[in-house]
C-alpha cells in the first residue's frame, strides 16, 4: 500500500531552517539524506521531494480570459508543503513508524523537531476483492 507523508511548514517567510546555526542546518540535511537512503535500501521508497520555500510559492487562479493570475506574499497563518515522501509499505502502522522517524528530524540545538507529518493513503487501482 502506498502512503504519502507530508511535511508542512508555516508560511510567510523563507524556511526557518535558513536562520539556524550552520552545524544544525548540516545535521538536519544529513539526517534527511540518511533517512531517504535507508528507505531506498529497505525497498520502501517510491518518491521523495523537497519543495522550494513558501516565500517562493505562488497561488494561481485563472483570470476571466483563462490566463493565470498569480498571487504571492501570504499571511503568516497559512501552512505550506515543505516536502513529501511516498512509501510503499505493508501496513498503515509501518507508514506511521516511518513518519515518526521523519518527525524526529533534528532542528536547532540538535533537538528533535517533532513536526506533525500528515499521512494519507495514496489511492490505487481496483481492490483485490473486486474479482
Amino acid at each position, binding site marked *: 500500500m502506498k502512503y504519502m507523508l507530508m511535511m508542512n511548514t508555516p508560511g510567510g517567510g523563507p524556511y526557518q531552517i535558513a536562520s539556524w546555526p550552520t552545524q544544525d542546518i548540516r545535521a538536519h540535511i544529513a539526517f534527511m539524506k540518511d533517512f531517504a537512503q535507508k528507505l531506498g535500501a529497505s525497498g520502501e521508497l517510491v518518491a521523495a521531494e523537497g519543495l522550494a520555500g513558501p516565500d517562493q510559492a505562488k497561488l494561481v487562479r485563472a483570470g476571466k480570459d483563462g490566463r493565470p493570475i498569480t498571487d504571492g506574499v501570504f499571511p503568516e497563518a497559512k501552512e505550506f508543503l515543505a516536502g513529501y515522501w511516498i512509501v510503499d509499505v505493508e501496513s498503515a502502522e509501518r507508514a506511521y513508524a516511518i513518519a515518526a522517524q521523519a518527525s524526529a528530524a533534528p532542528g536547532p540545538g540538535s533537538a528533535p523537531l517533532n513536526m506533525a507529518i500528515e499521512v494519507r493513503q495514496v489511492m490505487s487501482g*481496483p481492490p*483485490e476483492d473486486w474479482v
Partner: protein
Amino acid sequence: MSGEGEPEERERRARIDAMLRELAPQVLGAVIRRFRDFAASEDAVQEALIVAAARWPQGGVPEDPRAWLIRVAARRMVDHVRAETARRRREELVVSLVPPEEQLALGPDDDAAKAGDDALLLLFMCCHPALSTPTAIALTLRAVGGLTTAEIARAFLVPEATMAQRISRAKQTIGDSGVPFERPAPEDAARRLGAVLHVLYLIFSEGYAASSGERLQRTDLSGEALRLARMLHGLVPEDTEAAGLLALMLLTDARRAARTGPDGELIPLDEQDRSRWERAAIAEGVALLEATLPRGAVGPYQLQAAIAAVHDEASSTAETDWPQILALYGLLQKMSDNPMVALNGAVAAAMVHGPAAGLARLDELAKDPRLVEHHRLDAVRAHLLERAGDIDGAIAGYRRAAARTTSLPERSYLLERAARLGAAPHER
C-alpha cells in the same frame, strides 16, 4: 538471416523469448541444486539468459537449450566464486566447488521430469511461508516467472531501484533463513502448496485489477499468473486445488475485456457485455472443473471456480443460476473465514430470496469487527437498499462507501451510482 523480413525476425525472437522464460526456472533450479547459493545462482542464470537472448536469434538455438543454459550458468558461478575467492584470499578454488573439468558434465543428467521437479522446488522455495507475501511475490515473478526487475517494478508501480532492492533483500532472506531447496516433508506438503497457490492467486488479483493508465503492465501480470498456474498444474496434475486455481483464473480472466469501459471505468458483472467474454477460456475452465470436482478433494479455489463457472455460463444476470451460487457460497463459507466471502454470499441470498434476506445477512455481518466501517459493507448494503426501493438509504450508503474506498475506479463507480439515484426518476 538474409532475405528474412522484419516480422519473421520479430516472431523468432518472440519464440526464443518464450522458450527462455519457460526454461529459466528449470535452469535456476538445477543450478541451485548444485551450488546451494540462491542469490549467486539467480545472478548467474540471468547472465546466461542474457547471452542466450543475444546469440540464439542469429546463431541458432542449441540442440539441448536447457543443458546449454545450465552449463553457461554453472561456468559463471565458478568464475564468480573464483573472482570472489581471489579477491578475498588469493587462493585456489576450494574443494567444495565443482572442479573445472567436471563443469561440462553438468546438465545432461537432466531429463524433463527432473527439470520440472527443479522448477517446482524453486516455486516452493520462493513461496516459503517464512517469507513475507510481497517478498514471495517479487521473488516468484523474478526467479520462476523470469520477469525483469523493471517489468516487476512497472507492474507494482514503484521505481525500478526500489524493486531491485526488494528482490536483492528477498534473495538475501532466502539465503539467511536457510529455506532449503528440497521437497517439503509429506506432512508439510499441503500447507506449502497452499502457500504457492496463495502467492499465484495474489499475483493474478493484482494483474486482474487493471487500472486504466497501467493497463498493459497489469494485464501482463494476470497473464503471467495464469502461465505459472498452468505450469504448476502440469507439475502436480493430481492436486485438485492447483487445478481449481487454474480454472478460477481462466474463468475470471475470460471476463477481462468486458470489465473495463472505454474510459477505464469499472463495469460490474451485472452490466457487462457478455459477448466480449472469451468463450474458449470459459470452455477450458469448465472442462477442467468438470474433470477435477468429481475427484472429491474439493477446496476453496475449486468452489470459487465453480461460482465463476455458473456466472460465465449464464447469458445474463437474470438467467444466472443464483440458487446454485448461493449453495456454493454456503459451502465456501464453511471452509473460509474471509468476510468478503460472506458479503458475496449475502448478495447471492438477495438474488434468490429478495433484498430483505440479503440485508438481514448484512446486519449480522456488520457485527464482525473486520467489517465494521468497511467500505464494501456499505457498498453492498447500498446495492441491496436500491433493489429494495430505499433510494435515500442507497444514496447515503454509496456516498459513505465512496468516501472510504481507496480505489479510484471504485470511488468513481460508487459516486456515479449515488448520482444516478439522486437524479429525477425519468433521468435515471
